[in-house]
């Protein structure tokens, strides 16, 4: 507000009148330090005026039994745990017999007890779900933590279901999420650094990391970037990610957002930093590499050969999802000579009735399958299934019989869609679905040459990308062969003795050499 007022003083006055109906203006430092009064009735009036209109403000007056001192409790209904207020504050207050005029000696039994002097502190404590206790003749108030807001049960995250892993997911409360991570890493070096982001929202953002593993430069960079965010509020982890990422003009996700505590814990153990945002079930992991989006937590609990095979499959799926439709277009528009005669004849037969050039055929199909996917996404499950069935029948059968698209095109589109669903990370999967449209257009103009150029441009882009100053394309482009043990092929766990180089960990070794099961 202050820098604002220096540049445009006139507007500021108008704004103040609009948005602050009460007499306190916290943007002035003087007002921020304004202390509460000793007179209880006056305090009540000021507080009600401050919050006004606030129908959820509850004021409870209690007489402290022996010496008849007036006590007042303030809290916002819905933000506090009523049970806690009853059991830990009201009941002890009404039962106690010790004669005391000292507010500190009141027998409240909440787990946390703070002192508030200024209206600013009290106001914020109320908004955070604390109960404020004031006593006649005291110039400060007690802030008792009685937070309890509506909460979701811990469930398995829908987009990241695991077959053999844990079935717990993060919830919307940061403290619980941090606890979930702590359950996996019971280590004194696990540190949590809390920052407040947003002038209005004041979201609590916590960085969770292993102090003796994480690279301090990366941690500094991340902390700086988060501190520099100057916005009203951060509602979601995705928003936070957009404000702190290295390249906002890239289609690729530069951070991982996960709802799984075990994923977060395993990344922290590799030397990465987890950013927990209060109010969002997604936890942001940084720094990331391109390859880690193709890995899932299940990879480590399956046989290494099986999971290596699955990783290879994902890699193939990545290429299929990006390039298959454009290869179809390029081959049929320019390079049909590369098809052997028999295949060419069968393709030609299926395309003989089609009036559209391959690019339009492909665009129609790809756009309609994207529509189907998006339509099914937000509908309730039974309706969503209907959409899938209707879409499948229309696209699979009717469109071919009507002569709008060819059979081969249907196969191509289906393959592409399935391949894009194989990518375990929804962010990367969305990126890939987006990328194939420009490549299809280029392929329709320049054939294989265009596809190759797009491929090289993609590589160039990925090579130039950085995630918090570390190479996004590792372990391929700055070639780190030791990191290859956990890249496309997952080596047996006992061979992975060091943490990945891409996170530049301070402590590299993560396990001793494991000789194997042979007994001496």
């Amino acid at each position: 507000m202050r820098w604002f007022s220096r540049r445009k003083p006139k507007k500021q006055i108008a704004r103040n009148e609009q948005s602050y109906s009460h007499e306190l203006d916290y943007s002035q430092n003087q007002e921020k330090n304004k202390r509460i009064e000793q007179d209880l009735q006056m305090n009540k009036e000021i507080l009600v005026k401050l919050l006004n209109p606030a129908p959820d403000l509850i004021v409870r007056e209690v007489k402290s039994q022996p010496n008849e001192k007036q006590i007042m409790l303030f809290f916002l209904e819905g933000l506090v745990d009523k049970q806690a207020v009853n059991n830990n504050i009201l009941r002890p207050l009404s039962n106690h017999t010790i004669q005391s005029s000292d507010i500190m000696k009141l027998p409240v039994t909440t787990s946390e007890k703070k002192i508030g002097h200024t209206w600013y502190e009290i106001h914020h404590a109320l908004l955070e779900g604390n109960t404020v206790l004031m006593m006649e003749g005291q110039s400060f108030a007690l802030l008792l933590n009685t937070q309890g807001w509506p909460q979701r049960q811990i469930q398995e995250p829908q987009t990241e279901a695991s077959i053999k892993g844990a079935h717990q997911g993060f919830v919307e409360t940061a403290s619980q999420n941090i606890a979930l991570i702590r359950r996996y890493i019971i280590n004194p070096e696990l540190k949590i650094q809390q920052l407040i982001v947003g002038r209005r929202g004041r979201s609590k953002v916590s960085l969770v990391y292993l102090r003796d593993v994480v690279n301090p430069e990366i941690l500094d960079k991340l902390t700086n970037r988060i501190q520099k965010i100057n916005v009203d509020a951060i509602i979601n982890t995705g928003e936070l990610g957009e404000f702190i990422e290295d390249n906002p003009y890239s289609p690729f996700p530069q951070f991982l957002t996960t709802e799984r505590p075990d994923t977060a814990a395993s990344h922290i153990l590799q030397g990465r930093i987890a950013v927990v945002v209060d109010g969002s079930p997604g936890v942001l992991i940084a720094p990331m590499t391109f390859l880690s989006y193709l890995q899932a937590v299940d990879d480590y609990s399956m046989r290494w050969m099986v999971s290596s095979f699955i990783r290879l499959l994902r890699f193939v799926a990545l290429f299929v999802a990006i390039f298959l439709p454009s290869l179809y277009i390029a081959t049929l528009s320019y390079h049909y000579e590369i098809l052997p005669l028999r295949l060419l004849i069968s393709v030609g037969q299926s395309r003989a009735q089609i009036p559209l050039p391959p690019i339009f055929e492909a665009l129609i199909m790809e756009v309609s399958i994207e529509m189907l996917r998006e339509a099914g996404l937000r509908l309730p499950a039974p309706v969503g299934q209907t959409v899938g069935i209707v879409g499948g029948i229309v696209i699979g059968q009717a469109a071919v019989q009507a002569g709008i698209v060819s059979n081969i095109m249907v196969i191509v589109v289906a393959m592409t869609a399935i391949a894009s669903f194989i990518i375990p990370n929804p962010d990367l999967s969305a990126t890939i679905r987006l990328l194939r449209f420009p490549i299809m257009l280029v392929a329709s103009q320049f054939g294989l040459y265009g596809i190759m150029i797009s491929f090289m441009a993609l590589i160039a882009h990925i090579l130039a990308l950085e995630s918090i100053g570390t190479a996004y394309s590792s372990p391929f482009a700055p070639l780190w062969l030791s990191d290859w043990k956990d890249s496309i092929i997952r080596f047996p766990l006992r061979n992975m003795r060091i943490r990945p180089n891409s996170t530049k960990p301070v402590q590299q070794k993560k396990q001793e050499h494991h000789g194997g099961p042979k007994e001496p």
Partner: protein
Amino acid sequence: MNIQAVKEQSHPKLSTLQFIFLIVGAQVKTGILTLPRDLAEVSGTDGWISLLAAWLISLVMGFFIIHTAKKHPDDTLFDLLTRYFGPWIGNLFVLALVGFSFFIVLVVANINVHIFLLFALPHASNYGLMALLLLPLYMVLKNGLNVAGRYNELLFYMLCWMPLFLLVPLKHGHLLNLLPVLKDGWNPVWHGMSTAMFSFYGFELAYLFYPFLANKKAALKGLVIANSITLVTYLFFTFVCYIYFSPDEIKEYKWPPLIELQSIEFSFVERFEVVFLPFFLMVYFTTLIPYLFKSVHGLTRIFHKQDHKPILRVLIVCILLLSIFYSPSYTDLEKYFDWWGYVAIIICFFFPPLFWLYVQTVHLVKKWRGV
């Protein structure tokens, strides 16, 4: 920290592998498709001996280059020139070098477009292809030398398995084509030297990359490895073509390796060379990147700019505009290749030893005066 960051930006560090592959990329160029035929024309089946000799010569030149660059480990060639020849003559040299490398970029980009128009896309426009070609080039170079080094390294790994396809048709080849060795004496080998030497041009870029190298002690080793990788690549292509084609047949084709690939047929892909050719694009890229970097870097030095991006953009637009107004025929391109060869003889043969001698003399004179 800020000063350090700026320093790091102006002096990116290349790993030894990146240094090697930047030079290999520059050396392995379009010639790889034409070399077997060109060598066969002048020196028959003994062309591979010329290649070996050319490799030895380039190693010696590399020795001179590294030893000159060692004197001032933080100076690029452009700094060295202005340091030893004064600002005027030095800058004139720099301008000539920039012009030459930009000429190389133009020729390589145009030959690439030409081959594609010929083999795969007869109806496309050459400026369209050119615009497309320049896009990844710009994306790589705008991020500086470090990304360029990574790019060349990665492309090498992606390319190195490709020549293996050439082994497939070899079952129809005859090893006897190679024999007898030195059937016409040493004369043909001698005649093939200029053609063979052309394949190794690119090692002069070591001047440019030396100051960026992180581990300067590995420079000479790196250069030797780079030259050897290049040698192996060219030898492989030459041998394969000599074995597959008869000594007379090979002279009938302009691009023998592509013709050889035509004979590969899978049950699902015919005309294999059409599939192969787009991958060949990477070979052009690895050549274009170091030379375009050289031109951009030289111009940034001449104009004393901090940021290289505006100059890069101007050069890219120049290439594009040129391709709209002028599309060279293959005879033109061959003529340009000859020019390239002539100028490169001066830069790669005469310049390194002479410059080394000059620098050595200057230092001796200084020492002598100082004593």
